[in-house]
C-alpha cells in the first residue's frame, strides 16, 4: 500500500511547544489551546480540509477523545489531531468558524456522544429524535429492548 504523506509534524511541534506527538505522528492538543492551534494549522500549514471529526468514549479514563482528521488539498498531506474532554463536563469550543465542514459532524457527535460544542450555530440532535434521552455511543448507554 502506498505510504501516506503526513504534515510536517516536527515543524509544527517546534512552533507549538504545548502539543504532544506520538509515534504514529498523531498530535494531541490541550483543550484550552484548541482553537488557536487549529487556526494556525489552517493559516500556516495549508491544512484547509477538515475531512473527519469524531469522538470516542473512554469511561475508564473518565474522558472523551475528540479526533480531527485534516487534509491539505494543495500539499496532499494529512494530520490527525486529538483533544481530551472531561467526561463530567463535556464541553469543547466548536471549530465551525475555522472549517464549515464541522457543522454537521459536530451535531452528530453532540447527538450520539453528548459533547456540547460552544460557539456552534445550530447545535441540536441530527440523527435521533429531539425527545430521545441519552447518547447511544457512550459506553454506559443502556437501552431496554435492545439485543445487546
Amino acid at each position, binding site marked *: 500500500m502506498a505510504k501516506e*504523506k503526513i504534515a510536517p509534524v516536527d515543524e509544527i511541534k517546534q512552533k507549538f511547544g504545548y502539543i504532544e506527538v506520538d509515534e*504514529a505522528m498523531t498530535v494531541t492538543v490541550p483543550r484550552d489551546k484548541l482553537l488557536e492551534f487549529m487556526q494556525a494549522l489552517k493559516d500556516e500549514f495549508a491544512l484547509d480540509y477538515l*475531512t473527519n471529526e469524531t469522538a470516542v468514549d473512554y469511561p475508564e479514563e473518565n474522558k472523551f477523545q475528540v479526533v480531527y*482528521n485534516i487534509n491539505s488539498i494543495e500539499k496532499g498531506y494529512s494530520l490527525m489531531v486529538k483533544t481530551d474532554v472531561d467526561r463530567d463536563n463535556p464541553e469543547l469550543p466548536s471549530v465551525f468558524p475555522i472549517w464549515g465542514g464541522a457543522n454537521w459532524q459536530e451535531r452528530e457527535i453532540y447527538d450520539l456522544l453528548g459533547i456540547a460544542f460552544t460557539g456552534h450555530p445550530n447545535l441540536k440532535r441530527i440523527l435521533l429524535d429531539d425527545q430521545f434521552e441519552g447518547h447511544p455511543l457512550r459506553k454506559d448507554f443502556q437501552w431496554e429492548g435492545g439485543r445487546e
Partner: protein
Amino acid sequence: MLRTQEYFLNFGPQHPSTHGVFQIILTLDGERIVKGEPVCGYLHRGIEKLAEARTYTQVIPYTDRMDYLAAMLQNLGYVQAVEKLMGIEVPERAEYLRVISGELSRIASHLIGIGVNALDIGAFTGFLLCFREREKIMDLLEELTGSRMTLSYARIGGVADDAPEGWLDRLKKLMDEMPGYIEEYQGLITGNEIFQARTKFIGILSPETAINYSLSGPTLRGSGVNYDLRKARPYGVYDRFDFEVPLGENGDCFDRFLCRMLEMEQSVRIIQQAVEQIKEVDGPVIGKVPKVLKPPKGEVYHEIESSKGIIGYYVVSDGSNKPYRVHVRRPSFINLGYLDEMVRGYLLADVVAILSSIDIVLGEVDC
C-alpha cells in the same frame, strides 16, 4: 416594494425526489427559497453502535447497508482500514479484483446518479436507459459475488473468491460497449435543451466554499477542485492506471452531473487496463490472515474515494476481537451539510435539481 407573507413547506420525508426518507423544511417567499432546513435521521440504524458488538469480519455486511448503490467501495474502505491497523499484506490478484469490482460499483452508482438526476427533472427516458446498462453491471456483480447490491465481496486480507470462468471476457465485452452507451446518454440527457435550462447556473458552489465545507466527490470536483483520492493519495494499486480526473467549471448542477458522466468513462478506462494487467497476475485472492482477528491496541483512519465522495473509516482497537469504536465519515452526510445555503434564493423547483445533483443515498446519510 410589495411584501408578502413567508410560509413553510414540508418537502418530504415521503417524496420521490428526496431519494429516500429525507425532509427539508422550506421557508418560502412566493416561490423563492428563504431558508431550507434539512432534517435527516429517519433511516438511522445505529451501525456504528452495532459494530461495537460484532467481530471485525462481521462488520463488513453492515457497511453494505450504508451506500447500497456502491457497496463494494464501502466494503473496501473498511477492510483497508483494518488491514492498515493490523499490517496485513493483500495479494496482488485480490487488489486487481478490488479495483475492478469497485469501479464497476462506481459506474453502477453513477448510472443511478445521472439517471435519477434526469428523472427528477422530468426526463423519464434517461432514467430507463441508465437502468438498462446498470442491469448488465448488476448481472456481472452477481456472478462475481453472489449478490446484486449488498455485495460483501471484500474480505480482510483480500476478496471472497476469484472471478468465475470466462467472467473477465464478459466484463471486457461490456466495457468495450460502454463508451457507446455513454455517448447515447450524452446525446439524450447532456445535450437536452430542457435539461440544460434546468441545471445550468443553478445551485452554484464556489471552490472555496466547497473546500471549507468538506464537500467531496463530484460535488467538490464540479466546482473545479482537483481532489480525487485515487490520484491525490493512491491506495491499493491505483497508481498503476492511467486515468484523468474530470473537473467542472462553474460549480453548478450541470457541472456536477457532467463530472459523473465523464467519471464513468474514466472508470471504464481503469477497468480495461485492470483486465489486461490481471492476466499477468496469478496466485491467491486472500492473504494469510489468522482465523480470529485481534488487531493490536491502537487506532487508524483510512479514507478512499467512493462514488459519492470520500468515505473514511476510523477504527479503534482495544486488543480484543471486536472493534472498540468504528466511525464512518460518510460523504453523502457531509455533502448535505451545505444544502441550506445552497438552495437559498433559488426557486422551489430548483430544490429538486440541486438535491439530486448532490447525489445522496439516505442509507449512508443516516448510517
